[in-house]
């Protein structure tokens, strides 16, 4: 048990530059795709790209992929779940009302 302080996983800088390049490309793609008429798919494509970008930031820039603290993932999943409850139940109300 003579272990010194266990240091966190240090990612290579190449990895960070790769993630950055992917995020920049996706930004250009999402702006460009918005000018193409995909019907109702436009919003879905924009949100899927945004979620993928957010995932890259959370997993790599925020080190969630390599964290030693397992509760972090539980906090993130529950936070997103609470947000889902807020949005889903509110919309269940407002989208079924008749506007007079």
């Amino acid at each position, binding site marked *: 048990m003579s272990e010194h302080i266990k240091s966190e996983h240090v990612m290579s800088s190449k990895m960070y530059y790769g*993630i950055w390049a992917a995020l920049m490309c996706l930004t250009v793609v999402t702006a460009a795709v918005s000018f193409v008429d995909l019907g109702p798919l436009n919003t879905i494509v924009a949100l899927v790209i945004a979620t993928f970008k957010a995932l890259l930031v959370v997993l790599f820039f925020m*080190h969630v992929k390599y964290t030693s603290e397992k509760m972090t993932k539980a906090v993130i999943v529950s936070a997103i779940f609470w947000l889902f409850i*807020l949005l889903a139940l509110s919309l269940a109300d407002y989208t079924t009302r008749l506007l007079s």
Partner: protein
Amino acid sequence: MSDSPGAVETQKPELLHHFSSAEQQRDASTFGMWLFLATEIMFFGGMFCAYLIYRYWYYNEFAAGSRSINIWLGTINTAVLICSSLTVALGVRAAQMGKRKLLVTLLLITMVFGVAFLGIKGVEWYQKFEEHHIPGNSFNVDDIIHDYPQIHIDPQHEQIFFSLYFAMTGLHALHMVIGLGIFTFLTYKAWKGVYSPSYYTPVEVGGLYWHFVDIVWIYLFPLLYLIDRKPLR
């Protein structure tokens, strides 16, 4: 290295007495930050919920309002924030490896990106101010109604879109200003040589905050700027 764990820990002034190891202290701090970020998701969540409801009700006004916002400035600002997230991530890495000068440099570059973001945001808001698109007494969207004769636009509903636009980008900008304050503090401490490979938690935790604010913008960009950019029929 041959010291007993207790002896190693007592040499570390940054280790608080109620933690048994530096690793436990770091994990607790990072976890606490994630809990705070969970409350931030709910904080912004209320606005996203309001946005969703009004966008569902007044889609035409939201689409026309979105078209009137400068997409180039929005895209450039997204790129600026992504670059700042890269310099934050590289800064945390520099702290992990004990490179003090590199850490200070990267923190300063991050703040330059942050200020650039707010400057571009200011230009964007100023354009809206000149166009009378800021909700209030002088709110006027006759130019938008004139630009899109094929869409029925109610000025009152258009005002709701711009209220949400300014509230959401404003709350985000406030977070950027707070982030700049945190990074000023981190830069000062890093310059003083407080951080080392065994103690860099404030840099990591401050970085988590910065990345979170970046993620909020990653969602605000398509939701406010890209609602409907396709050619009108």
